[in-house]
């Protein structure tokens, strides 16, 4: 079932120096281990066969170090389906039962950590938030496009992080209340205005879907612009800061790069209206500039 490339088995040499008794114990242990392992594999195969329903996954594989994987390829896995199973569940099952070298990032399993944005059947989605039953087979799973692949489904996120951090993604104000127990006031409306923008989980799905970001490496990208929006629109920061933020966004690889492709908005797992936010910032920037004219 698994298409993992068989490793060339190397000669046993470590045990030579060990005492005879230890060797025997080792042999017994190994035997037991093998038995357990075989049993497990048989069970897995059995499960997959007997399940009413299996899902056929085609998973992108690449590893710069393993000769067989240096040329990217797709592996097939057949995973027994259970009600409610997500793409991430299926990947974990395939990893745990067929091929432990199958590599992907994941952690929370509930769409909040942003680790597992993948390219599933041609669009950017969170593995953990995508029900298998919503997909047509075979389910093609690839790493995010427009990012360097580190291994299998893992891509290099550095560039995305750099862009996120280049927009001064932190609250700044010149007028904090004095007392350490005094809060800044914020209207409900204003909190509502920034609410969606604060939901970003840094999954990078949007950035991966945007063709402009793919072409222009310096483009801030929808997520970073949205991050800036989150602060620029927060009334607690004050006008002077908003000015400063608009200046960052206005630079040539900032908001103007966006060509309203809408794919970012479409793929965002947190339903953030990214295009809308970018457009609003463009208008704000123009308004801001008109003041000087």
């Amino acid at each position, binding site marked *: 079932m698994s298409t993992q490339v068989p490793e060339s088995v190397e000669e046993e040499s470590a045990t030579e120096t060990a005492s005879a008794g230890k060797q025997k114990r080792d042999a017994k242990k190994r035997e037991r281990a093998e038995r357990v392992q075989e049993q497990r594999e048989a069970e897995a195969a059995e499960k997959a066969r007997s399940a009413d329903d299996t899902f056929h996954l085609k998973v992108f594989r690449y590893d710069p170090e393993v000769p067989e994987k240096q040329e990217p390829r797709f592996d097939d896995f057949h995973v027994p389906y259970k009600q409610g199973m997500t793409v991430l569940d299926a990947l974990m099952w395939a990893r745990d039962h067929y091929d432990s070298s199958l590599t992907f990032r994941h952690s929370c399993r509930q769409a909040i950590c942003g680790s597992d944005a993948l390219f599933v059947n041609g669009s950017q989605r969170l593995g953990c938030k995508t029900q298998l039953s919503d997909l047509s087979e075979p389910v093609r799973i690839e790493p995010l496009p427009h990012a360097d692949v580190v291994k299998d489904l893992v891509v290099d996120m550095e*560039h995305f992080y*750099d*862009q996120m*951090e*280049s927009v*001064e993604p932190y609250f700044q104000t010149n007028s904090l209340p004095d007392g350490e127990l005094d809060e800044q006031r914020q209207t409900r409306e204003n909190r509502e205005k920034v609410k969606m923008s604060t939901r970003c989980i840094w999954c990078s799905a949007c950035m991966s879907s945007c063709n*402009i970001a793919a*072409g*222009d*490496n*310096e*483009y801030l990208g929808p997520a970073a612009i949205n991050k800036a929006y989150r602060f620029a629109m927060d009334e607690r920061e004050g006008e002077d800061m908003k000015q400063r933020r608009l*200046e*960052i966004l*206005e*630079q*040539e*690889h*900032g*908001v*103007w*790069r966006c*060509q309203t492709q809408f794919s970012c908005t479409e793929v965002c797992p947190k339903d953030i209206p990214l295009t809308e936010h970018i457009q609003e910032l*463009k208008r704000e*920037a*123009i308004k801001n*500039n008109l003041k000087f004219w």
Partner: protein
Amino acid sequence: MAERYTSFEPGGRRWLWQRLTAAFLVVVLAFHFFLLHFVNHADEVTFALSQARMEQLTYFSLMILFLVTATFHGVNGVYNALVNQGLSGTRKTAVKAILGLASVLLIVQGVRTALAWAGGVPI
């Protein structure tokens, strides 16, 4: 790449002009099409008819403006598209120069043609 962006380059101005010219072009282009394909059928176009229209100052200046805006809009659009695909450095400067030159040639040629029709600026 995480440097703070401090140098301010007004990318917004070209963006705005692209929109403004677009808004203008909607009207004029529609007018142009309508006039030359529906009111006057294409196969009826002759020098004389064009001449008659061009001799009116309003029409003449409208057409010149049309030419200029369309050129700006089109060439700027092409330039944006290239820059969006990651054009930078010397190649970017070169493209800028070539496109600039092409626009100037286009406008000059267009204006010469219009003048030929109108037989000089129709004042």
